[in-house]
């Protein structure tokens, strides 16, 4: 049963060209990030060396030459004010940004789904307590926590990990609310109600009836949490708990680049474009996974409604 289901999902996923392209793009991004030192070496640059001779100091440090100083030596130009190589900074930045954003997203989804399910399935008391807890968390501005955290966390604590924890622990309110709302409405659906009446415990109901049905909104939402987290990471650097200089990240690059979008448009466009491609790929993939998992179908199958079986037959025929 398990195997058949897996292969069915995979098969449907593989059959969607968009999904394949999106997955390939994401894999390529991950590969670029992993191979950053190698690729930078290939270019002959590194992300931290200053090149004062490549910028015009009197004009605010704008890169000399067209397109932000693009040349054979600096494939994507150099950073205004420092002359650091943008190609290298972009690739090294991908490591931090992708790691932090994905890590935080996983944390947010795990906590959010857990709390949301518990609030939706638990009794009125559990719901009240958990919902109010979420309210407290949502109302507590990250700025206030961030400032306090800086004085508690030791300076040599690994920064990317700290970012994952901070963003992950403080920003799961949205996920939990969406999950709670879906749970409340799913609870009333026939098959879930039947399972509950049939004596399944809440944990079993959650695992077998609800989680599959929640996959759709959660995956859809999580795909967009990734860019949000990258942007949050950028703003956290202002609180002193972002990436430490001279480390680069897309968020850090975007925030320093904003001012330059007239004087040196490429500087802004590069991180923005990378971020956009990531978002687009994640969205397409998330959509495809959502459709491929097709939760209703599976849960129906188990409860044994004829509708589910019929639906499945039609779908496979269409695919």
């Amino acid at each position, binding site marked *: 049963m398990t195997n058949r289901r897996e292969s069915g999902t995979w098969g449907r996923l593989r059959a969607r060209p968009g999904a394949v392209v999106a997955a390939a793009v994401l894999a390529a991004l991950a590969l670029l990030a992993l191979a950053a030192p190698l690729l930078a070496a290939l270019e002959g640059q590194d992300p931290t060396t200053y090149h004062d001779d490549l910028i015009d100091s009197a004009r605010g440090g704008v890169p000399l030459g067209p397109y932000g100083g693009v040349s054979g030596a600096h494939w994507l130009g150099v950073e205004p004010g420092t002359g650091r190589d943008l190609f290298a900074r972009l690739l090294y930045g991908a490591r931090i940004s992708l790691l932090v954003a994905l890590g935080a997203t996983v944390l947010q989804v795990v906590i959010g789904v857990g709390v949301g399910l518990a609030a939706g399935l638990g009794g009125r008391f559990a719901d*009240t307590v958990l*919902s*109010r807890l*979420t*309210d*407290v968390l*949502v*109302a*507590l*501005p*990250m*700025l*206030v*926590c961030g*400032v*306090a955290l*800086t*004085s*508690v966390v030791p300076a040599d604590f690994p920064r990317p990990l700290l970012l994952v924890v901070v963003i992950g622990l403080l920003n799961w*309110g*949205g996920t939990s*609310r*969406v999950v*709670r*709302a*879906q749970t*409340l*409405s799913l609870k*009333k659906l026939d098959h879930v109600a039947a399972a509950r009446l049939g004596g399944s415990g809440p944990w079993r109901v959650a695992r077998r009836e609800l989680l599959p049905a929640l996959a*759709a*909104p959660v995956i*859809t*939402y999580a*795909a*967009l949490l990734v*860019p*949000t987290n990258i*942007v949050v990471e*950028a*703003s956290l650097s202002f609180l002193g708990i972002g990436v430490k200089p001279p480390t680069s990240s897309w968020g850090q690059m*975007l*925030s320093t680049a*904003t001012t330059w*979008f*007239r004087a040196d448009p490429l500087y*802004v466009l590069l991180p*923005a474009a990378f*971020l*956009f491609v*990531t*978002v*687009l790929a994640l*969205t397409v993939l*998330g*959509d495809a996974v*959502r*459709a491929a998992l097709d939760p*209703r179908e599976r849960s129906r199958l188990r409860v044994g409604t004829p*509708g589910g079986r019929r*639906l499945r037959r039609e779908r496979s025929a269409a695919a």
Partner: protein
Amino acid sequence: MTGYVLRKLGGALLVLFLLSVVVYLLFYVAPGDPARLACGPRCDAGQIRQVRDQLGLDESLVAQYLHFLQAIGTGRDFSTGTGVLHCPAPCFGLSYQNGQPVTTLLGDRLPVTASLACGAMVLWLLLGVGTGLLSALRRGGPAERVLTVLTLTGTATPVFVTGLLLLMLFCASLQWLPFPSYVPLTEDPEQWAWNLLLPWTALALLESAKYARLTRSATLETLAEDHIRTFRAYGLRERAVVGRHALRGALPPVIALNAIDLGTMFGGAMLTETLFGLPGLGQLLVHSVRTVDLPVVVGTVLGIGAAVVVASAVADVLYALADRRVTLT
């Protein structure tokens, strides 16, 4: 119903209480001494001690907190040096930095943030849900593609980038709109809207993608459900199917998420407020955190907390309404 309201109210008070405790505790560990900041950089130890006395910071944290709670209930009198400043209940204290009553500061700024958040919400719901429906129903059309790319770009771009681009385009280059400055709704509704249009747009672009994707996904799910298929089979008009039934499936997650976003917007729109020069709660919060101005921070966070609680209560009610209709069909 009364029980429901009472339960909500109790929950709300609990949230506000917890928030105030958490903020007090966070300030205990946060760096910076409010007395030193109020006193100026060149004060000596004696002067700092005087200012600390003056601000009541010589008391223990617990005593300070109890005074804070007491002032909310009964109000409090403060010395201005030459006279007495009465801060009526509910009194959240005076700013450490400039002696203004926190309630005055909040009262000045709440309308600004409320205007910003509510207007932006309308816009992101229109843009988000609209795009979501469009992309669920007419897949692959040019309008759908443009809107989808627009919302995704918005999500992937920090608000300070989007905002500055909008300012450059509409206020500087084309000069279609004034550089925003807050005009109260009660003073001139038309100017209020014109001045807030760009901040609203910047926030809506940031938030709408989530709604678009959620709406799309939920609508597709609903459309595939049995009863909808049955309605279609019975020959119900497409518009009726979508309007009456499919959209309803999208409502729960959209309502739930909207409550969260609206709530956070009260405290989280600081970058937008700063960029557009809107004197709202976010700006106040940033400034007071920087200057370790505890009464103002507590007041602001409680204001945000109240907004979050109200938003989530309203969402619960809306959700119950939407839900009942779903079960009815």
